[in-house]
């Protein structure tokens, strides 16, 4: 039988950090991931990771305040304090594990400036920080010998006597179904970017874990908080890192004007993401865009800076936009990038379902609130990945194995797969539905939203659900059947869409990334609170929780 004290779902930064931590505590831990660990989406993070190092004259309180303000006061301040005060040690830990990080002249870690922060406290490896960290964590996994179920697709969480007790999973290479029993499961399955078309996210980012937790009864929190990144390429949605603006790149409209001076006269291009995205969208809506885009101009930075610090953008510009960034500005637009919302957890990763933890982008500890600061997500993954790993490992020490009927569970999972594979009903495939759904999400849940649009979206999602119930899988085989995987992912995406729209309709104000044209201002009197969505047979059920405020009283946000 396959069984582990701690089973981590997902091998991104959060998942591998959690596994290393649980291993340190002596737990029998394994990771399960639908792609090889180093293929995980954490790779994509270009810009860097934030930490306030005190020996550099920075203070974690300043970092925490920037984060609180960036979150539009929706972030829980106790969690933010933990993240920011533990950031330095965690960063150093990553350096000790082997991450190279760029240095200053004395050979100490060097920083760059990032949006929404008054100090340069973003540590980086050229412009592939995520990749550099991901590969180093994988090295640690090899060193520890932690088992990785590589290219295994989690189908569902197993619930037993009110606890999460493992997963059912599909070994992609063979198409065989397995049950993995676990005392605790840590969900680290990443975001849900591909629900939006276009998006900066990789194709595998489909909200599987959020939907699985939602189905298992966990609460999702602040799902309406979907971040649009200010600089994505038109069409493909490929991201240009915020590092570009950190290094001093300008945003220009069709008149060649640095329009940010009208929206954020102090921080200019480095105001927080929601602010910059809205400014761009306003420029475009008011006719000062070019083909639905504005321009990002790096030319004045000079070849040396561009070559040393922005290498990946040179390649991306050339390969995906046909632009030489040394010579021309790049047309960009706001594009879906990140979800602040997710499975509600406490500061040790515990969710509302016993035995189930969550960390990373799929979780919502509430450190990002209404808007995540650039380079705070990598920090979130490693700090709360570690904390969940430690906590889960400790808890399992004196826990008995759940008594599962493995054969029944495997049989049921196999049956439902068989059913799906043999169905020919509509002949309609996942690809059409996924595309239509994505375009709808972008249209009705974009930078700006309103009641009518979101209601339309809600009706459409019901329609997608009906279509999905008749979806047909073309590939009937078992070996590496990606057609089947995509079909299963679409089911998860639709559930996430349902929760996102429910949250969006519920929150009747504009806060952080949630900008409603029908409720254009922040309303602290009524909405300084979290929106929780739980699944019931009758549809999503909504509830609220107060925001935790420790040191910083809500004030107006100006950049």
């Amino acid at each position, binding site marked *: 039988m396959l069984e582990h004290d701690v089973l981590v779902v997902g091998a991104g930064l959060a998942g591998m950090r959690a596994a290393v931590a649980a291993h340190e505590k002596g737990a029998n831990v394994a990771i399960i991931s639908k*792609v*090889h660990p*180093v*293929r*995980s*989406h954490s*790779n*994509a993070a270009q810009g860097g990771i934030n930490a306030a190092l005190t*020996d550099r004259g920075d203070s974690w309180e300043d970092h925490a305040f920037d984060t609180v303000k960036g979150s539009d006061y929706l972030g829980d301040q106790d969690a933010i304090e933990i993240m920011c005060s533990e950031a330095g040690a965690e960063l*150093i830990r990553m*350096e*000790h*594990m*082997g991450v*190279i*990080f*760029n*240095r*200053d*002249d*004395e*050979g*100490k*870690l*060097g920083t760059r400036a990032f949006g929404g922060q008054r100090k340069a406290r973003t540590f980086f*490896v*050229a412009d*592939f920080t995520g*990749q*550099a960290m991901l*590969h*180093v964590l994988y*090295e*640690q996994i*090899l*060193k520890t010998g932690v088992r990785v179920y590589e290219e295994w697709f989690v189908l569902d969480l197993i619930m037993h006597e009110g606890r999460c007790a493992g997963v059912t999973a599909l070994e992609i*290479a063979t198409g065989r179904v397995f049950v993995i029993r676990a005392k605790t499961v840590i969900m680290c399955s990443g975001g849900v970017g591909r629900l939006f078309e276009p998006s900066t996210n*990789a*194709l595998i980012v489909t909200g599987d874990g959020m939907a699985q937790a939602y189905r298992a009864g966990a609460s999702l929190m602040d799902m309406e908080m979907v971040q649009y990144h200010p600089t994505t390429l038109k069409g*493909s949605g*490929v991201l240009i890192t915020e590092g570009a603006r950190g290094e001093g790149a300008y945003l220009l409209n069709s008149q060649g004007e640095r329009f940010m001076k009208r929206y954020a006269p102090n921080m200019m291009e480095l105001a927080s993401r929601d602010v910059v995205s809205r400014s761009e969208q306003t420029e475009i809506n008011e006719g000062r865009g070019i083909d639905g885009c504005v321009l990002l101009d790096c030319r004045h930075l000079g070849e040396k800076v561009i070559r*040393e610090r922005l290498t*990946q953008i040179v*390649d991306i510009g050339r*390969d*995906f936009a*046909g632009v030489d960034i040394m010579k021309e500005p790049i047309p960009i637009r706001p594009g879906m990038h990140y979800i602040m919302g997710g499975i509600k957890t406490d500061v040790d990763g515990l969710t509302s379902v016993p035995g189930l933890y969550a960390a990373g982008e799929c979780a919502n500890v509430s450190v990002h609130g209404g808007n995540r600061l650039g380079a705070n997500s990598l920090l979130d993954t490693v700090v709360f990945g570690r904390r969940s790993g430690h906590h889960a490992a400790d808890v399992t020490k004196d826990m008995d194995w759940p008594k599962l009927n493995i054969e029944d569970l495997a049989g049921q999972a196999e049956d439902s797969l068989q059913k799906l594979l043999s169905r020919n009903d509509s002949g309609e*495939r996942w*690809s059409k539905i996924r*595309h239509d759904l994505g375009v709808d999400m972008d249209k009705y849940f974009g930078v700006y939203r309103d009641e009518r649009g979101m209601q339309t979206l809600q009706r459409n999602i019901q329609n997608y659900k009906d279509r999905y119930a008749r979806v047909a*899988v*073309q*590939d009937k*085989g*078992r*070996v*590496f*059947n*990606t*057609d089947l995987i995509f079909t299963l992912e679409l089911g998860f995406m639709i559930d996430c869409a349902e929760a996102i729209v429910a949250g969006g309709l519920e929150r009747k104000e504009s806060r952080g990334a949630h900008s409603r044209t029908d409720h254009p201002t922040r309303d602290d009197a009524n909405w300084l609170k979290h929106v929780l969505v739980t699944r019931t047979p009758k549809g999503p059920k909504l509830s609220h929780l107060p925001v935790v405020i420790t040191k910083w009283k809500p004030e107006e946000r100006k950049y």
Partner: protein
Amino acid sequence: MEVTLSVRRYNPDDKERPSWWQDYTVDVERTASVLDALIKVREEVDGSLSLRCSCRSAICGSCAMRVNGHAHLACNTKIIEASQDGSKIRVEPMGNAAVVKDLVVDMKMFWDKVRQVSPWLQPAGPEPAGEYTAPNEAMLHLAGVMSCIMCGACVSDCTSLEVDKNFIAPAALAKAYRFVADPRDAQTVERLRMLNEYSGIWDCTRCYECVQACPKGVAPMDRIMAMRDKAMEAGFTKTYGARHTDAFVDSIEHSGWLDELRLPIKTVGMFNLPKLMGFGPVGLRALMRGKMPPIFHTPVPNVKNVRRLFKKVRATQGREQK
């Protein structure tokens, strides 16, 4: 723009045909990549086509495959480059790996080789309270190797690996270099000692394929050469490598092709029994698959021409040395 992809397909469940070519014609944008076209096929034409891909921007390392005979990332290979005259684009799985299905290969051997080089930082002594200090130039230099995305393109096209499956191969060796050149790592000599063994840095034939195949500019061959220098500096001079290279050259000069049976024997030495026993399993597997090299190694026809080539090369080398 219309493009036709000729895809090498394979499905182990399909007992009738071992593998086959299938043509797909799709309409794509002028800026589209080979991956965009394949995704279009998968989404709109044939859902049974399997391939790995995720990031579409050359960072996840999933989509390496052979395009017109050479390994590339499908996502950063433009259609207009792969088919300048509008001809069919040939798409096949990577080489030097078993195919699982269609364009998906088994990466197990790839990762086993990576594991072989103990790919994790091993600093000396207790950790400092803060970060390790290290010159930025050294870190920038390392960034060049760290940008490896473990896609396997170099390994797919490695000619040395093709003849000797024990070769640690370019990706894992580049990974090893990442630690050898890291000022924080304290195991440099041990690492070099291991890499100096049979199947390590001396087994590269300097064919340059890996440099050409690598989509991230890692240039594995250059790293291998740098490690040879470092190994010599560290005092490892009596190498398998030197002997292996000699044995390789001898065989080709003698018969015009590689005597795979005698190569390992000559390399490790006739009397190195433990090492020779180690080759047993490889030999057995080769035998089972009908791939055992012939016991009697007969020269190719016109081997004289090969020998003439050797003479010529020696003559020019001689001149250069003077």
